[in-house]
């Protein structure tokens, strides 16, 4: 393989990793605030269908992406209201959100099936994009890809370097104490859930506007669940989410190359590799109990009702 091919492969890996990275980063913030939202898949697909629909109607994929962010956030509001204001069970509500999202997206998207979509074109910066070999890799990808990297860095900085981030983490670790200190627990959690929804929405838009510019029912095909696994995989650290998402993306792409090269490993095994890798890392993490405990939000998935 020459360099051009290698770069092309790396770009494929970036594309495969970006939606996972976005959704997982959003979910990480949600979980750090002590809320477990299993509705990632549902929010993602709502983002995918809204983004696609908006892009088709307006002819502008960027408006599509913005609409997807708004739709994801709006959809997560439903979850936030049920689990935070009404203190319903987070696991059940999250699952319901996923099922609702899959069904609702099919209904919204019915008129858009079978239409070739508008692809969000890769950016093209004069001179920089034209640099041989690395130009296209560093300066010639789509805007959502760059956003995802900025987002991880921003979330990492926010959670561990700002006062607001500390407050969010305290809400996730011990909402009672945070409440006693005057931190608005419910409001913080609302904002976190909305942020998670927005990120999932954007992840969905990446699928329907960049990855495969089309709308088909169920096109997220379980990526929301992988994003959820990645958060645990990363033991709630943004930098590790980045590593995890790219590891997963790389294995996903590598298995096809291994097959095309005729490497004599059963195809079924290669296809399951990304999932096996996830399980393997989860086992490794679970072995180091202290590290896990330090990072796990202590009140994860427990409803908080003030004054009870």
């Amino acid at each position: 393989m020459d360099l051009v091919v290698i770069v092309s492969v790396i770009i494929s890996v970036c594309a495969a990793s970006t939606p996972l990275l976005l959704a997982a980063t959003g979910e990480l913030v949600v979980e750090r605030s002590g809320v477990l939202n299993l509705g990632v898949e549902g929010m993602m697909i709502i983002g995918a269908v809204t983004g696609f629909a908006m892009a088709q109607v307006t002819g502008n994929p960027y408006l599509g992406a913005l609409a997807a962010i708004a739709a994801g956030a709006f959809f997560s509001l439903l979850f936030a209201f049920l689990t935070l204001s009404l203190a319903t069970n987070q696991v059940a509500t999250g699952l319901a959100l996923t099922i609702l999202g899959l069904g609702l997206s099919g209904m919204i998207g019915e008129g858009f099936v079978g239409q070739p979509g508008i692809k969000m074109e890769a950016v093209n910066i004069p001179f920089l994009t034209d640099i041989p070999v690395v130009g296209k890799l560093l300066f010639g990808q789509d805007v959502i890809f760059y956003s995802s990297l900025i987002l991880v860095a921003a979330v990492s900085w926010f959670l561990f370097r700002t006062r607001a981030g500390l407050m969010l983490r305290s809400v996730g670790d011990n909402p009672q104490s945070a409440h006693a200190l005057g931190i608005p627990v419910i409001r913080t959690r609302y904002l976190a859930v909305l942020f998670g929804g927005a990120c999932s929405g954007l992840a969905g838009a990446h699928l329907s506007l960049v990855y495969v510019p089309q709308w088909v029912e169920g096109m997220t095909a379980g990526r929301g669940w992988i994003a959820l696994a990645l958060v645990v995989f990363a033991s709630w650290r943004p930098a590790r989410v980045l590593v995890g998402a790219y590891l997963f993306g790389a294995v996903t792409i590598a298995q096809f190359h291994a097959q095309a090269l005729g490497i004599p490993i059963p195809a079924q095994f290669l296809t399951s590799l990304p999932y096996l890798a996830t399980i393997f890392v989860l086992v490794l993490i679970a072995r180091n109990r202290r590290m896990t405990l330090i990072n796990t939000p202590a009140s994860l998935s427990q409803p908080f009702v003030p004054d009870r």
Partner: protein
Amino acid sequence: MKKKTAMALAAAITMAFTAQVSTASAAKKTKACFVYIGPVGDFGWTYQHDQGRQAVEKAFGDEVETAYLESVPESSEAQRPIEGLARSGCNIIFTTSFNYMDPTNKAAKKFPDVKFEHATGFKREYPNVSNYSSKFYQGRYVQGQIAAKMSKTGVAGYIASFPIPEVVRGINSFILGAQSVNPDFKLKVVWVSTWFDPPKEADAAKALIDQGVDIVTQHTDSTAAMQVAAERGVLAFGQASDMIKFGPKTQLTAIIDDWAPYYISRVKAVMDGTWKQVNVWEGMAEGNVVMAPFTNMPDDVAKMATETVAKITSGELEPFTGPVMKQDGTVWLKAGERADIGTMLGMNFYVKGVDDKLPQ
């Protein structure tokens, strides 16, 4: 997967209720039901079956009622949705994916008065089960010839779903077609272990193109590979429906599955009370396998393809005619010998020239 089952179940239950109401009011209506592997909007395999369902509605108007379940998982998970349909008053049920084979036969045992039609399989354990399929491999042969003419690298890529006879047959037919033009033609096969996952199909297409393939063909159900091929500037074949919209400068042709004639004739048979168990395997001659217009190729290639289609339609040409060697170099078909139908339906080996090891 679990969610989909839940949805399918919920749908089956709701349908059971509504169906009882409607059969009570209009007892004479014949009810034809369909079980789909993907969403009706996949614009591929399931889409074409649903076109067939709509053709049935159109043909019989008020005399018929149809229902369908989409995105029903394969294997044992399909049992309950299929039985739910049978219970809801369907007179004839079409199950449209290979691994609905055992659930369909089990349901047939429980509901002897309901007619079952299983697509692409080979088990008929009860008299109320029929099998039907189309000779898509005929179209693959034509595609192989076109690929060999159009490819500059001499290598085509094949995105495959599961190693079942239907898929293996397509791969073999494609390479035989290609070799009839260029004996050294190579085929790279990538298995994605899914019928429908657009991003994954796109990944597979990208990987194949990065490995030097300049013709992409697929045996999966979405249009993703076509879009990737269009983006990368290589050529591709559409699958199951005409995908020209997704690659106006990319699609060479597509195999179009036309199920409408079969579905109409079978529903008619139920209405007339003449339904009998059959094992139908039809192709170009009967109009079940149709090629989309030959586009994005020079006239002489299109002419060759048209001639091949004519020869297959007339029966003059059969893709699986010797001499054909298996992948390991042993002789499968002697010169002039045609493959028997049993071997074709259960095909589980590659012919020579496929650059892949068949997953077992």
